[in-house]
């Protein structure tokens, strides 16, 4: 029973750096409603189960991200959303400040390709992930 309750209400951290956040926000909005799947975005990492890394991570932001991840209590999951967080995306060729993929910093469970990730695939992959 506790496993079911954990699965059905995976609370994501309201974390976002750049463009993928707008798709994340569309998920919270009315058309693709996040809340009907039990996902309530939380502001504090202490209350979150899931971190959807939406947006490019730069070297300046990297320590903050790792700290947020460490502050999340177990069991915690990471969905790397978008090309920027998988491999650095369009900033992976020459950028001097982008981290090439968030899996260099934290352990990632699911990789969502896209730039930005379309809102519907996020829901589909979330179900597959569960």
């Amino acid at each position, binding site marked *: 029973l506790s496993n079911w309750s954990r699965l059905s209400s995976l609370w994501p951290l309201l974390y976002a750096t*750049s463009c993928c956040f*707008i798709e994340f926000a569309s998920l919270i909005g*009315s058309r693709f409603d996040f809340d009907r799947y039990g996902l309530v975005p939380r502001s504090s990492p202490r209350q979150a189960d899931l971190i959807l890394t939406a947006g490019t991570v730069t070297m300046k932001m990297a320590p903050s991200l790792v700290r947020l991840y460490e502050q999340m209590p177990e069991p915690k999951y990471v969905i790397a959303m978008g090309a920027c967080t998988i491999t650095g995306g369009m900033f992976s060729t020459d950028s001097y400040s982008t981290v090439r993929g968030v899996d260099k910093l934290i352990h990632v469970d699911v990789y969502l390709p896209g730039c930005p990730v379309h809102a519907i695939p996020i829901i589909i992959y979330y179900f597959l992930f569960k």
Partner: protein
Amino acid sequence: MTTRNRQIKNFTLNFGPQHPAAHGVSRLVLEMNGEVVERAEPHIGSLHRGTEKLIEYKTYLQALPYSDRSDYVSMMAQEHAHSSAVERLLNCEVPLRAQYIRVLFREITRISNHSLALTTHAMDVGASTPFLWAFEEREKLLEFYERVSGARMHASFIRPGGVAQDLPLGLCRDIDSFTQQFSSRIDELEEMSTGNRIWKQRLVDIGTVTAQQAKDWGFSGVMLRGSGVCWDLRRAAPYDVHDQLDPDVPVGTRGDRYDRYCIRIEEMRQSVRIIVQCLNQMPSGMIKADDRKLCPPSRCRMKLSMESSIHHFEPYTEGFSVPASSTYTAVEAPKGEFGVFLVSNGSNRPYRRKIRAPGFAHSQGLDSMSKHHMPADVVTIIGTQDIVSGEVDR
């Protein structure tokens, strides 16, 4: 009964890069005197991705998606700035239909941006319902983006020489139905907020900017018009077909957050008006400049003739060369004046593309706007300035 004298000391509060005010990554260090903010120091750069340097290694067409991603809420405005800069250097004439399509989509972008800005601002103030309502409208607009370009957000649609593809059948009819119902949606949003006593208490006389301060700090767009300076690039330096359209430019009086909120609402209504005028006046014709060295031919023609294949191959691989020159082109993006200073050295890659982002200038003013306000007001001041860290940090 005696009261103990307590000393209140200043302390520094880190308004960190991750906070629910949801405007990207912006870190503010607030020096507080009790509950009141004495100084707010923005620490930017957490999203600095080296866009301008990356662009120097890409051709002009490959550099276009970087413009989408600088201000990721109003995509086509940036694309338009980049494309206009390149066209100015090339001295290339954009066909009339393409100009109308550009203005149409720029106004759609303006509505989309203002819906997001106003309602995330409302969410920061505490009203969570306008967010849900406006995002439904935004989904319809993103659907128009997707129908015309294939991508909901980062369209890469406005390209040097014109636009990428012609409007699909039925799109104009759907945009027209959207405009007919959108004014009622704005009315609903206004009903929730404009006359609301709590809203007014939170917004009136907070974050006030005088006209002189706005000009000194380099504000543009709504921030400048809120303080009473009537400066809109669509009127002051008309580009594309703006001289044939007839919008009103709302201007505020007091320079506080309430004025800016009202201006954004009114700008959404004016954008609807511009969209309707564009749909009525749009001519038929070409949507790309006739220069085959600049604009690739359509795919069906590419498959039919050898010359078209070459003309398709060249822009996408080597790119087109731009004469050595420099230009500063600015457009009235929803957030303000988005400018591109493009220097070319005659090759197929830009030598330097400096981005003048409105959010960068606005974030300078954060300190003076937040003085002597509460931290809760600081959050909403960030919202009213419409700061998006993608364009501040690039």
